[in-house]
């Protein structure tokens, strides 16, 4: 039995009166690729944002590497540096170059020397195919390039898990492929990934385990083969028939 890298137990989240997560249980094992799918408003992004405490939840627990994360600054910051987060809208720092973005975390949070951080940073930029743009500012990049730099920025922290919050939703269709290829490469290298996505084909191809969410609940979970080809629940069937 593998140890759980991330373990979510009975997670509840309200926005005011709106109950958006209604008791979520989920675990991510090392080197596992977990896909989370579902309609807009199903709570899947909120769930991912709860994992690194960008959203605060009211009930339930989140454990990282077997240790329950308590709601205080120090523990949250320590935990966050182990989880790489990639956003739908990239959120690159516009006042820094590509390389500046990538070394910001290692130098400011991990206390790495600039020279060392730059070497590591270039390694990860190379990995996402953006090394030639290291001195460029983000506003000169296409959406796909921005997202690849954002991935390198997260990787440079050498996290245990990478969290992807709809990483291709803000991209023009022709730019989706380059980002998905990078994510797929990470998966193949054995990186642990948690991906909220609308790209069903991608989830099916890359994920080891897929969760289908609807109205704040996990309705069904299983291997991509089970979930996509033989969904058991009516709501899953209805969702997939709309999408595919």
């Amino acid at each position, binding site marked *: 039995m593998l140890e759980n890298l991330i373990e979510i137990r009975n997670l509840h989240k309200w926005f005011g009166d709106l109950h958006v997560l209604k008791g979520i249980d989920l675990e991510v094992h090392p080197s596992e690729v977990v896909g989370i799918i579902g309609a807009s408003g199903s709570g899947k992004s909120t769930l991912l944002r709860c994992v690194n405490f*960008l959203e605060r939840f009211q009930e339930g627990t989140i454990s990282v590497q077997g240790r329950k994360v308590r709601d205080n600054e120090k523990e949250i*910051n320590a935990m*966050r540096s182990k989880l790489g987060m990639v956003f739908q809208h990239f*959120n690159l720092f516009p006042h820094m170059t590509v390389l500046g973005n990538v070394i910001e*975390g290692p130098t400011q949070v991990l206390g790495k020397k600039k020279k060392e951080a730059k070497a590591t940073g270039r390694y990860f930029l190379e990995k996402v195919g953006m090394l030639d743009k290291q001195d460029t500012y983000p506003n000169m990049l296409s959406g796909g390039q921005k997202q690849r730099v*954002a991935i390198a920025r997260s990787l440079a922290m050498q996290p245990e898990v990478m969290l992807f919050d709809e990483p291709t939703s803000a991209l023009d269709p022709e730019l989706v492929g380059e980002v998905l290829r990078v994510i797929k490469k990470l998966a193949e290298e054995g990186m642990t990934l948690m991906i909220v996505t609308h790209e069903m084909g991608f989830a099916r191809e890359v994920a080891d385990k897929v969760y289908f969410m609807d109205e704040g609940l996990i309705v069904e979970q299983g291997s991509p083969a089970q979930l996509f080809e033989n969904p058991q629940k009516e709501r899953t069937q209805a969702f997939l028939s709309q999408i595919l």
Partner: protein
Amino acid sequence: MGYDFSAIFQYFPYFLPAAWMTIEITVLGILLGLLLGLITAFAKISSKKFLNLPALGYIYMIRGTPLLLQLLFIYYGMRGILGLSALPSAVLALGIHNGAYIAEIFRGAIISISPGQMEAARSLGMTYPRAMLRIILPQAFKRSVPPLGNQFIIALKDSSLASTITINELLLKSQQLASSNFMMMEMLTIAAFFYLIYTGLFTWLFNSIEAKLETN
């Protein structure tokens, strides 16, 4: 009685100390205003009531009353309490007045930065102060440059109100001289000339700061 151009050149040198006084109280007032503005902006953004409420009260009082009243209030008030003379009173009044407006400029610039920037910084594990310092403030500062330039020009012109508390700056100087030489228009022209020079310098300075930030 006609307009005497030659008087302008003749009296010009008499204005130099006043021109210096104007720039002195303006610059000191602005520096104080920047400091107060930065502190107040953070206090107002804070979710903590004991920081938030004083900031709110300060801005409300300053924006809700005329600068002339504030100037007189501080001058007569401080003279009684601290024995403060006219010059520190003028600087204090201009600083406190501009601080409220500059606070709103900084606050506006800070909250205009996309929340995603703070989220990205925090999700790298940065603390809130570090994320502010490294990620939010450099971007916010850039956005606050144009309105700050505007505010500095307003402060320059507002400094003329200090004439009412015996500060011998450009406006008071022109009135004093005119009361003895009866050439009010000519004296006001000289004062206007200095204001326009200063405004031109401020505009140039801010344009070059903007241009420099743009290329970065």
